């Protein structure tokens, strides 16, 4: 199994991701589906809005990219296609959520990140973009990762 580990991941990262994927397949977090692919380093996860929330019956997609030294560093998590309208989600898919940046801990998993994101959606009381959306998105052109731009977020404490 380890022989098939992708070039971009350390041995520890590949090993852990195999375990996480296996655990996910047996016990996926409610409201999420992992799109099956051979790429261990990039997961595409389908998110379904929870019942009785603003996002009920809506489907979104998360793109999760793992760094070489995962889990010592957080994965990069962004919404693709049409990101949900939410005061902490920018129109380019970047998510303002502290555990993805400064509050990351290697004991967290894709599963626990997904649960955090869903609870962030579920607790929302209005469907709106962050106040600084336009400025932020303009600054992010040239394909900047949210990890490079986190200090531009209007509010780092979510």
């Amino acid at each position, binding site marked *: *199994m*380890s022989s098939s580990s992708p070039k971009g991941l*350390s*041995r*520890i990262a590949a*090993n*852990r991701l195999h*375990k*996480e994927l296996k*655990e996910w397949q047996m016990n996926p977090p409610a409201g999420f589906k992992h799109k099956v692919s051979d790429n261990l380093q990039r997961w595409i996860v389908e998110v379904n809005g929870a019942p009785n929330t603003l996002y009920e019956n809506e489907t979104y997609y998360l793109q999760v990219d793992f760094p070489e*030294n995962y*889990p*010592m*560093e957080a994965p990069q998590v962004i919404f693709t296609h049409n990101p949900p309208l939410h005061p902490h989600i920018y129109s380019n898919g970047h998510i303002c959520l502290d555990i993805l940046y400064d509050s*990351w*801990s*290697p*004991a967290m998993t894709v599963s626990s990140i997904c649960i955090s994101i869903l609870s962030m959606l579920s607790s929302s009381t209005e469907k709106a973009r962050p106040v600084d959306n336009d400025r932020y998105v303009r600054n992010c052109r040239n394909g900047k990762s949210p990890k490079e731009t986190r200090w531009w977020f209007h509010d780092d404490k979510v």
Partner: protein
Amino acid sequence: MSTGFVSANKQAEILKDQGNLYFKKNRISAAIEAYTEAITLCPKVATYWTNRALCHKKRNDWERVEADCRTALEIDKSSLKARYMLGIALLEKNEFSEAIKQLEKALDLSRGGTSDMVEVIWSEVGKAKYAEWEKVALPQQQKQKALREFCENALREDYKNSLFRLGSNNKAQSCGALYENIEDEMIDINSSDFLEIDKTTFEVSKLKSSFVEKKQTLDDVFDKAAEYYKPTEVPEFLCCKITMDLYRDPVITPSGITYERAILLDHLEKVGKFDPLTRAPLQAHELITNLAIKEAVKAYLAEHAWAYKTY
């Protein structure tokens, strides 16, 4: 010290540096020549031997790797590189238990080293232990399978014979039917003598339930024995929350959480000085080896040696 001796030392160092340069350029023969000359001048320097061993390793020349590492260890018992390469060479030669011994010594020497190095040595130890187990387990598994088939056949044969005996004591014509329906639920007997049939049916059902019971016991015994060979899920409480693997060198934090030592040290250095699960402040010197969990993992592996595959 004579001046001649000193110059031999210096010359040997120059040769070693040349060897290192050749090795970097992947000119293995030239590197081996340089190290060999260095060894001739100063045979008591362990590094010259381990560097030459590394060249032999690159060529998969395991006999020579072993020989050079053994010499290096005679000079310096604490050479991590020599222990490690000797372990690998022995593993290649299928000398598993000796390989494990050397790799475990390497692990002791690597304590406090980088997590990548510890990881590499651990995975070699796991490989060696799995290979050692497989060598014994596979033939054993075959033997059990054969014995199981043999016992099942004997049991079936015994049942058949009892039915035949019963049949010959009663109406001969029912024999065929009894025999055919040996493991079926319905016993179909073509006979007009109802009294005889009643008696026969009773005897048959007695034989049948005895057979079923024995077969069940036999299955239980062999299933239990086969568990030793069958990979299942490793219990979560024996796995580190960060590596998600069985503990190798578990340490406990003041929060009471246990982690794999190397990965936790990595975390403290690269992520932050806090307990990854509780986020309580944490310093490296506060960690204590969790001997109880270490013993538990050891006991678990003794019963589930297949788990070494991902160890």
